[in-house]
């Protein structure tokens, strides 16, 4: 190694580095190919977890979501794709509380920056893996995310 810069040192160093390159590509030659043949494997296609398809609001079995209608997502959205329609109701113990009426999300103007899900304090909204969102009418892209008749999940005490 002391003669690293002389003629033969450089020669053998170069040869070994070429060998490393050849080994790497040969390993790649036999690895499983990552190409997804989309329309054929539509049924078994698994998108990766972090893929941002469309915004969704998960509901549990009792048709409850976690949205408290605080409107942080609406403020965070740079494109104004989110509109939170809420109303003020008075609870049994006399407190005033905001309640979600409609959560409107416009997929057409969403740029999938994920600022809304980051802003959400209750993790009420998240991006799904669904990506086949082509429609013939732009109005169909405006989605209401909360299910009809759903209510906010009560905190477990």
């Amino acid at each position, binding site marked *: 190694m002391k003669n690293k810069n002389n003629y033969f040192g450089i020669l053998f160093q170069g040869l070994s580095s070429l060998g490393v390159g050849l080994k790497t590509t040969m390993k*790649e030659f036999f690895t499983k190919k990552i190409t997804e043949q989309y329309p054929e494997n539509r049924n078994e296609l698994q998108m990766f977890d972090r893929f941002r398809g469309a915004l969704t609001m998960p509901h549990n079995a009792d048709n409850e979501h976690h949205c408290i209608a605080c409107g942080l997502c609406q403020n965070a959205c740079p494109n104004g794709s989110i509109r939170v329609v809420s109303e003020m109701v008075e609870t049994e113990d006399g407190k005033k509380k905001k309640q979600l009426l409609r959560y409107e999300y416009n997929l057409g103007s969403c740029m999938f920056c994920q600022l809304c899900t980051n802003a959400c304090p209750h993790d009420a909204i998240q991006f799904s893996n669904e990506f086949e969102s082509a429609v013939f009418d732009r109005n169909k892209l405006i989605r209401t995310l909360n299910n009809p008749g759903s209510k906010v999940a009560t905190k477990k005490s």
Partner: protein
Amino acid sequence: MFDFSIVTNWIHQWLLSLMPQGWAIFTECVAVGIGIILLYALLAIILIYMERKVCAAFQCRLGPNRVGPWGCIQVICDVLKMLTKEIFTPKGVDKKLYNLAPYMILLASFLTFACLPISKGLEVLDFNVGVFFLLAASSIGVVGILLAGWSSNNKFSIIGAMRSGAQIISYELSAGMAILTMVVLSGTMQISEIVGMQTNGWLIFTGHIPAFVAFIIYLIAGNAECNRGPFDLPEAESELTAGYHTEYSGMGFGFFYLAEYLNLFIVAAIAATVFLGGWMPLHIPGLDGFNTIMDYIPGFIWYFGKAFFVVFLLMWMRWSFPRLRIDQILSLEWKYLVPISMINLLVMALVVTFGWHF
């Protein structure tokens, strides 16, 4: 081993019974020419398909797989597309040279292609200085490249052609030297005799270390001579658009493309002939049963198998390494490959003189 000269002699006798000798030879020449052109086109299609698939596999992709089963009709579609394109002549080109250049390149690769011993008795050109002729004929290609670059009236073309000229002329030297090493070992320049020498073991095994070094040097120099792999700076898409064939369209470009792939095959086939025994089956001295089983596999299968194996090696090299700069290419050739192949030639001469080979 089936001798194809029985078939060719039978055809010759049959033609002689129909017509005088001059006409018979003329008919045979035409038939052989058509055969070579057909084989040439077929091999080009196979090679382009193989290149796309192998390249895809090295890049963790699948490659063409939509047109036909496994995408095998893709290349044929590409050929048809290229045939229907307009042949466009840009303003200010030297028309005569511009139109001549693709044919020069094709001529060179046809001439070398005719030297290849495909099977026993299936050599088209086979005479006592065959290897020498082969090297000389393959050098005509550089004339075509220089003509194409010069006549195109385009700065990219001329730069590409000049680089290609410098590169091919330099690497011809070490490729020639590597083959010369094997000529020293086999003691003949006739291609059929070189193949015949290897009945009891291919030259890369009988010549052991110097033969192996020559094989490696030949692969590097061969890759450089086809303007491929890490040595593709005459074409250097990122800087020279397409190098010397920038201005060609339609089949003019098609000829360059064809010749590029066939030169790849020719380099591989020469390596297969000189180092890996041509059509000669794998014989291990002493194992007679094994040798007779190997003899049942026809020669041309051995030949194409070996040639495509070497083609795969060359593609492996091409898709592994990044492109070299022109000064790096020249220093690799003149400071490393030429001295090493000269010493290698000397070692081989000593090995042959003292009988150290098998």
